[in-house]
């Protein structure tokens, strides 16, 4: 009756216990909500001997707002994040992103940690075992050729988590707990541009939580994604923007992108636009910068170039709308 490959499930009661099991058992994987991991295991994408269940770790689901910002524990569910009225005021992009992830039946268990660490995706990868076998597998799992870029050496599977770009524009830091203690890094540094190994986590390391600083006064943020199924789907391109403006001029602008590369991105170069008028010329430069920095590949049924264009247009629209809301 088992439809999943056999594994031993270990319920960790503390982070230290989870880290010990993960570091000490080759191939062991963490499971939080399981809404990404379980379907992947069903598809034969990995057969970990041990799954370390994080859901019983005391305190990992704390969501605490303090003077210096908000700390969101890794086990906070997306349903909780999406329905938090105070957060919707303070961090609209993050709450909008959470509300856009999958459907209520997923969000009730899906976690912040699991969403940040969600696997990269590709039409040649998110398929059943027999489908992939009939196609000689691929570089990311079980094969030696990438069907998207056959002459390349790397996997271009797209990172398509929705929370990361929203947290990037809000300046979040991620707390990582591991065998050598705890470290904090900017959230964009959690990722690498490699579809096969997109997380910069060492053996046994886990995301413990995210810390989002207090947002600058008069800053506003929003998130928008393009997807194939309007009610429930990963982003083909997802864009978060945080803008603060003064008298129609940019005070600060941050743009985060997902779905277009093997990692979520912070758009480079926006600092240089401080002081510029928010006009068509700025939006044109923004569109060009987005089109230049994203690199969607043929990893979805939707054309890569459409994803590039839609990322640029979504960024432009968000900036325009946020500027109007601030004015």
């Amino acid at each position: 009756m088992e439809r999943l490959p056999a594994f031993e499930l270990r319920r960790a009661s503390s982070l230290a216990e989870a880290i010990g099991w993960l570091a000490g058992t080759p191939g062991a994987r963490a499971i939080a909500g399981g809404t990404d991991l379980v379907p992947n295991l069903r598809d034969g994408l990995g057969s970990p001997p041990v799954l370390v269940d994080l859901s019983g770790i005391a305190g990992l689901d704390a969501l605490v707002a303090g003077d210096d910002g908000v700390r969101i524990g890794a086990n906070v569910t997306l349903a909780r994040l999406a329905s938090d009225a105070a957060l919707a005021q303070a961090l609209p992009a993050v709450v909008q992103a959470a509300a856009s992830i999958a459907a209520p039946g997923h969000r009730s268990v899906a976690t912040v940690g699991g969403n940040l660490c969600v696997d990269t995706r590709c039409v040649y990868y998110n398929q059943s075992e027999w489908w992939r076998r009939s196609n000689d597998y691929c570089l990311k799992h079980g094969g030696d050729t990438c069907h998207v870029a056959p002459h390349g050496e790397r996997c271009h599977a797209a990172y398509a988590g929705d929370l990361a770009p929203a947290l990037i524009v809000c300046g979040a830091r991620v707390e990582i707990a591991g065998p050598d203690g705890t470290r904090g890094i900017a959230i964009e540094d959690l990722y690498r541009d490699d579809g096969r190994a997109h997380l910069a986590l060492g053996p046994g390391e886990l995301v413990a939580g995210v810390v989002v600083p207090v947002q600058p006064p008069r800053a506003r943020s929003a998130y928008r994604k393009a997807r194939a199924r309007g009610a429930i789907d990963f982003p083909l391109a997802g864009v978060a923007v945080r803008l603060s403006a003064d008298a129609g001029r940019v005070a600060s602008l941050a743009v985060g992108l997902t779905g277009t590369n093997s990692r979520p991105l912070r758009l480079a170069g926006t600092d240089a636009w401080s002081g510029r008028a928010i006009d068509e010329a700025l939006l044109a430069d923004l569109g060009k910068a987005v089109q230049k920095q994203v690199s969607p590949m043929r990893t979805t049924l939707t054309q890569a170039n459409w994803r590039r264009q839609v990322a640029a247009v979504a960024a432009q629209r968000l900036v325009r709308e946020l500027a109007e809301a601030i004015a």
Partner: protein
Amino acid sequence: MGKRLVSLVVNGRLREEAVGDATLLLDFLREQLGLTGTKRGCDGGECGACTVLVDDAPRLACLTLVARCEGARVETIESQSAGGRMSALQAAFHEKLGTQCGFCTPGMIMAAEALLRGDPAPDEVAIREALGGNLCRCTGYVKIIEAVQAAAGVGTPGDAPRRADATQATR
């Protein structure tokens, strides 16, 4: 691999069962308990046919390891009728033709049940949002939404935007 004992309450009845670590709640319900009302559609989290309630929240049984349901309260479509009488939702799906082939119906009703517990008078946007993960190949959804509205005793479709999409809003 190993089996373990879990105790959980299924449709009001305490169960103590030996389950495998890798056993999915869907297989446990259908094959171990014989509760075949919960349907296997896509078997990968895409269609909502396997929606059940776990501690009042909607959950996809095909993505849930039963070994992690220790102490949980699980409700399936079989819990809806009482004493041979249909629940309000079941009756409304019947009367409003919210069900055709019926395959999506248990999941639709359980997703709607989860919604109505938290929001007894939902608007159309909230209904569309709550059923967003549930696919139906037959009805075209309009009759399903009407059925949920009838069960809740609220409005008629058409007086709200066609699609709930919080992500399109700029705050």
